[in-house]
C-alpha cells in the first residue's frame, strides 16, 4: 500500500527510456503563438494572460528589474500549465519532482543574488545584518542571515513540491476511500465523493496559487537585489 501510494510520483519510463523529457516539454508545445493581428480565442487568452502577469508583477520593479519580465512570465505560465495538466487523471506531474523545482528555483535566485552583489554591493551586504543589532550578537546573526539567504531556493522548491505532492496524495487517498465505500454504504460514499469534488476544486486553485507564489517570491528576490 505504501509503495502504491507514492507510485504516481516515480519518474515514468517507457521501455527503459525516460519519457519525462517529453512530459516536461508538453506544455510549451500546446502553447502556440501566432503573428496575426486578429487571433483566435486561445491566442487572445494567452496574450491577455501575459499582459496581466506583466502588469501585476512588474509594476514594483525598477527598469533594470523589468528586463526579467519575459523570464517571470514564462516561469508562472510554465508552472501553472504543468500543475493544471498534472491534475488530469492518469497523468504524471513534473512539478512533484524536487529536482525539477530545484532546477527552476536555483538559477533565478542565483541570478538575482549575483546581480545584487555585482551592482549593489553595499545594499546586498547590509542585508546580512539587521539594523540595531547588539554588538555581541553580530557574528551569530551574520551566520544566520547567510544561512537564510542560501536556504531561500530550497524553501522555494520544497514549497512547490510539498504542496503539489500533498494535494495529489489527498486526492488519491479520498478517491480510494470513496471507491471502497460505494460497496459498503452508499450515503457515506456520497459524502466522501462530495469531499473529493471540493478537494479537486481546491487543487485547481492550489495549482494556480503555487505558480503565482513561486513567481512572486522570485520577483521579490529580484526586487531586493535590483
Amino acid at each position, binding site marked *: 500500500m505504501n509503495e502504491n501510494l507514492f507510485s504516481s510520483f516515480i519518474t515514468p519510463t517507457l521501455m527503459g527510456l525516460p519519457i519525462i523529457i517529453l512530459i516536461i516539454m508538453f506544455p*510549451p508545445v500546446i502553447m502556440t503563438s501566432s503573428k496575426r493581428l486578429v487571433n483566435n480565442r486561445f491566442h487572445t487568452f494567452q496574450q491577455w494572460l501575459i499582459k496581466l502577469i506583466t502588469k501585476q508583477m512588474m509594476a514594483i520593479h525598477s527598469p533594470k528589474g523589468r528586463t526579467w519580465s519575459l523570464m517571470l512570465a514564462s516561469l508562472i505560465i510554465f508552472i501553472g500549465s504543468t500543475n493544471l495538466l498534472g491534475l488530469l487523471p492518469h497523468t504524471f506531474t513534473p512539478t512533484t519532482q524536487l529536482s525539477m523545482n530545484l532546477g527552476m528555483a536555483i538559477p533565478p535566485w542565483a541570478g538575482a543574488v549575483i546581480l545584487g552583489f555585482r551592482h549593489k554591493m553595499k545594499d546586498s551586504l547590509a542585508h546580512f545584518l539587521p539594523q540595531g543589532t547588539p554588538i555581541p550578537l553580530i557574528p551569530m546573526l551574520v551566520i544566520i542571515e547567510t544561512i537564510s539567504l542560501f536556504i531561500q531556493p530550497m524553501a522555494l522548491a520544497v514549497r512547490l513540491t510539498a504542496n503539489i505532492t500533498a494535494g495529489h496524495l489527498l486526492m488519491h487517498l479520498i478517491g480510494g476511500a470513496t471507491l471502497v465505500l460505494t460497496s459498503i454504504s452508499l450515503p457515506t460514499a456520497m459524502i466522501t465523493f462530495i469531499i473529493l469534488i471540493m478537494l479537486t476544486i481546491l487543487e485547481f486553485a492550489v495549482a494556480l496559487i503555487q505558480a503565482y507564489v513561486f513567481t512572486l517570491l522570485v520577483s521579490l528576490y529580484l526586487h531586493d537585489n535590483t
Partner: protein
Amino acid sequence: MPQLDTSTWFTTVLASSITLFILMQLKISFHDLHKKPSNKYLKLFKPTNPWEQKWTKIYSPLSLPQP
C-alpha cells in the same frame, strides 16, 4: 518518497531547464503584443518638396564670389 531518488535528477533538471529557459521564453517572445493604435503627430510628417522653399546661402547673390 520517490522524488529523493537522485538517479533521474539529471534528466529532469536538463529537460526542465531547456524547456523553461529556451522553449517557453521563445514561445512567449513570439507573441505579438501590439500597442493600442494611437494618433500620430502630424508635425512629424514634413511634406517633401522637389524644390527648395527658401534661398539657401549658396544661391544667395550676396554670397556668390564677388568679382
